[in-house]
C-alpha cells in the first residue's frame, strides 16, 4: 500500500511540475499582458496541485490549508493585476508588454520587434458595442451604406 502512496505522490508532483513549467514558459514567452497574467495563475495552480499531493502523502491538513490561502491570494492578485492591466492599456492603447521598457539604462538601445506579423485578413472583426447605458447615436449615412455585406 505504501508503494501506491509514493506512486500517487510522484504522479501528482509530475503533473504539478508540468503545469507550473507551462505557466513559467507562458509568462516569459507571451507578449499579451492578460495572457501573462493567466500564466501566472497557472503557475499558482501547479503549486496547488503539488501542495494537495503532499498533504495527502503526509496526511496533514497543512497542504490544503495553504491551497485555500493560495486561492485567496490569487483572487486579490487578480483584482489588482487586472486593474493595473486596464490602466496600462488605457495609457498604452495596447496590451503589449514590450511597450513598457523605459526603465532600461540610458545607453541600452530599446527592443523593437523586427518583423511585425501581418494582420491576417480572415480574422473576424468584433462588433462595435456602444458604451453601456448610453443611447447609440445613429449615423444615417452609414445606415444606408453597408460596406461589408
Amino acid at each position, binding site marked *: 500500500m505504501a508503494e501506491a502512496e509514493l506512486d500517487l505522490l510522484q504522479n501528482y508532483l509530475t503533473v504539478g511540475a508540468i503545469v507550473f513549467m507551462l505557466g513559467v514558459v507562458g509568462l*516569459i514567452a507571451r507578449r499579451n499582458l492578460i495572457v501573462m497574467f493567466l500564466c501566472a495563475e497557472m503557475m499558482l495552480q501547479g503549486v496547488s496541485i503539488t501542495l494537495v499531493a503532499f498533504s495527502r502523502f503526509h496526511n496533514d491538513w497543512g497542504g490544503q490549508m495553504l491551497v485555500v490561502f493560495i486561492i485567496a491570494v490569487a483572487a486579490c492578485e487578480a483584482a489588482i493585476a487586472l486593474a493595473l492591466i486596464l490602466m496600462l492599456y488605457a495609457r498604452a492603447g495596447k496590451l503589449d508588454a514590450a511597450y513598457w*521598457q*523605459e526603465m532600461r539604462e540610458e545607453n541600452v538601445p*530599446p527592443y523593437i520587434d523586427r518583423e511585425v506579423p501581418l494582420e491576417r485578413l480572415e480574422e473576424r472583426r468584433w462588433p462595435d458595442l456602444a458604451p453601456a447605458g448610453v443611447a447609440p447615436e445613429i449615423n444615417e449615412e452609414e445606415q444606408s451604406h453597408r460596406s461589408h455585406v
Partner: protein
Amino acid sequence: MSDWTTIQKLLVAIPALPLVATMVTALLGPRYLRGKSHLPIVFGLVISCVLSLELLRQLNRAIENHETGIGYETTVDLWTWASVPEAYDGSGSRKTIGDSTGRLITDVHDASDSSGPFHIAVTLRADGLTCIMLAMVTLVALLIAIYAVGYMHQDRGCWRFFTYIGLFVFSMTMLVSASNFVLLYVFWEAVGLCSYLLIGFWYEKREAAAAGTKAFLVNRVGDFGFALALFFIWTVYGTLNFHDTQNAPGVLGQERLSSMQQEFGRPGESGEGHPRGAQDQDVRTGYVGGGIGLAICLLLMLGACGKSAQFPLHVWLPDAMEGPTPVSALIHAATMVTAGVYMVARCTPLFAVDCAPYLDPRAVVATIGGLSALIAGIIAMTQNDLKRVLAYSTISQLGYMFLALGTGSLVGIIAGMFHLFTHAFFKSLLFLGAGSVMHAMGGVIDMRKFGGLRRLMPMTFWTFLAGALALSGIWPLAGFFSKDAILAAAYDVGHGEAAYASLFLWLTYAAFLTAFLTALYTFRAFYMTFFGAEEIPAEAGHHARESRPIMTVPLVILALGALAVGWIFGQPGATKSGFAGVAASTPSLAVMVHPGYRALDTAAERKSAAERKSAAEKKSAAEKGSVAEKGLHQDSHRRVAIISLVLAVLGIGIAGFLYLGDAREVRAIIQWPVMKQLHRISYGKFFFDPVYWILVVLPGLALASICYAFDRWLIDGLVNTIGRIPSGIGRLFRNMQCGMLQTYALWMLLGVLTLLGSAVWHMW
C-alpha cells in the same frame, strides 16, 4: 667675550663690520639711503681694512715671541652649529674602509675605542695665511668700493649693489677665517651666491641672468666635488675641524702635523724626509694615503677648479664679465677666484700625503694649473672684448698659482700665495682701468670700436700701463717678483730628482711660453685701446672724457701698490715679518719648514735614492728648508729671472710691432696655414662652451623630457588604467538592464535552472 685676546677680538670684528654695513644698507637702502647707500659699506670697509692691518701687526708680534708647536694659530668659538654625539663610530671594526680600487686600509687601527662626536662649531682662526688674505681682501674691496661709488652712482639699484658687495666681503672674510671644513663650505657657496647675484645685477639683460645662473651652476658642480671630499674626510678622519678639539684631533691640527713632522725626521727606514702613506699610520693622528688620500685631494681640486675657474670648469668666468666692472674687478679678479688657491694652500698636508700606487695629487694640481695657464693665454690672444681678455688672463695667472702649489715645495707654495697677493693688486687695477674706459665709452668694451685714448684719458692710460707692466712681469713691478718665484720653484722641481721631474720640466717650459704670451696679449690690448688713431664709438655720446677723481684715485693707489708691493714684500731681507715669514707661520705650511721635507718624492724613487745621497741630501734639504730666513731669491734663480724678463720684453716688443699702426701684419699672419687654425681655435675659446652644451646640457634636457614622458604615460597611465577597470566591468553588466520585463524573468529562470542543475548534478 671679554676674555678674548685682542687678536680674537679683531678676528671677530673684521667680518662683523661688513655684515652690519650690509644689514644697514639692505634695510634702509631702498627708501632712505637711495643715492648715499654706499656710505655704510665704505665706512665699514675702511674700519675693517684698518683692523685687518692691525691684525697683521698683532700676528707678526705673536709669531716673533711664539716658540711651541708648528706655526702659530689662535681660534675663537662663536656658537655650536651642530653636534651629534657618537656619530663617528670609532669602533675597531672599521677595517672595511674600502676605496674604489679595493685596496682596503685594513690595518687602520683606532687607538681610542670611544666614538667621537660630529661636532661643528662656528669657529674663526687667525694664522699667517688668514691674516694675509684678510688684509688683501679688505684693502682691495675698499678701493673697489670707492671706485664703485663713482661707477654706479647713476644706477637706480645701487643700494642693492652695495648690499651684495657688503655681503660678499663678509662671506669672503668668513671664508678665509673659517676653522672647519663645513664653515669653509658654507661661505664657499655664500661667495658663489654673491657672485651669482652680482653677475645678474642687471637682471633685465637676458645674458646677465643666464651668466649668473651659469656661474652658480658651474660652481655648484665644483662644490659637488668639494662636498664629496668633505664626506670622505669625515668618514676617514672622524672630524671636520682644522684645529684640534678635545674630542678629536683636527684635520690640520697640531697633533697630526707634529706626527707628520716626525715622519720627515725619522732617518733611514723607508726613506727620510717624506710623510709616508697611511699604511701603518694611526688615522686618529696621521694622514691617510693611498686611494682614499688621492680621492680626497682630487675632489678638493675639483672644488678649487670650480671656484677658481681652472681648466675643466673655467667656462663661467668669461661670461661673468656681464656683471658691472667693479664686480669683475673685486670678485672675478682679486678675491673670490683666489678662494680655490687659498683652500689648496690651506690643505697642503692633505696634498702632501703619499698616495704610493697612484699618481701624486700635487702633480695633478700642477698640470691643471699649467694647462689652464697655457690655454687661457692662447685664447686671450684673439679676444676683442677688453674685459674678456682680462678674464682669460686671470684664468692664466690662477693657473700659475696652481702650478706653484703643485710643486709641493714650501718655496713654491709661498711663491703661489705671493703671486696671489700681487695679482690681486695689478689685476683689479687693470679691470678698474677697463671699467673707466667702458664708463667713458658709454658701455662699449669692444676694443675694435675705440682706440687712441691715451690723450683723452691720461690717468687711466698711465695706471693701465703700470698694471700691464706688472702683469707682464717687468722687473721693478710686483708681477716680476711673484711670477719669477713661481718659475724658479717649478724650475727647481723640474731639475731636481723628484718623481715628476720630467713633467715639471715641461710645465716650466709651458710657464715660460705663457709668460711670453701674457706680455703679448696684455700689450696687444693696451696698444689697441690707447694707441692708434683716436676713435670714439657713437654710444659714448658727449661725455667721452677722463673719469672723475673718485674713480681715478683708487686706480692710482692700486698702481702704486702694483709698483711697490713686489719690492716691499718680495725682498729676501724681510725675514720673519716678510710675506714669506708670515705665510710660513701657518701651521699647515710650517710643517714643511722641517729640514727633512722634500718635494714630490714617491716611495719608489725614495728607496733607490736613499742609500746614495742621504748625507748630501740632508744638507741641501736643510739649506732649502730654511727658505724663511733667506727670502725668495737665491743665486740659482738669477738665470730664471733673466729669462722671464727677456721673454716679457720680447712679448711687449712683438705686440708693439704687430698692433701699433694699423695691424696689417696681424691680418697677414692669420692667413698662414698653421696660424689660421690656431687663430680659429683660439677665437672660438677652444670650443668649450659648445662641447659642454652638447655633452652636459642637451643630454640633461633630453633625459628630463624622457623622464617626464615616462612619468606621464607609463606610471600615470598605469594608475589611470587601474582606475578604469572597475568602471569597465560595471559597463559590462549595465547592458543587461534592457527594460523588457520578460528578460528579467528569463534571467531569473536561468538562475533557478543553474541552482537546481547543480543540486541535481550532485545527486546525479
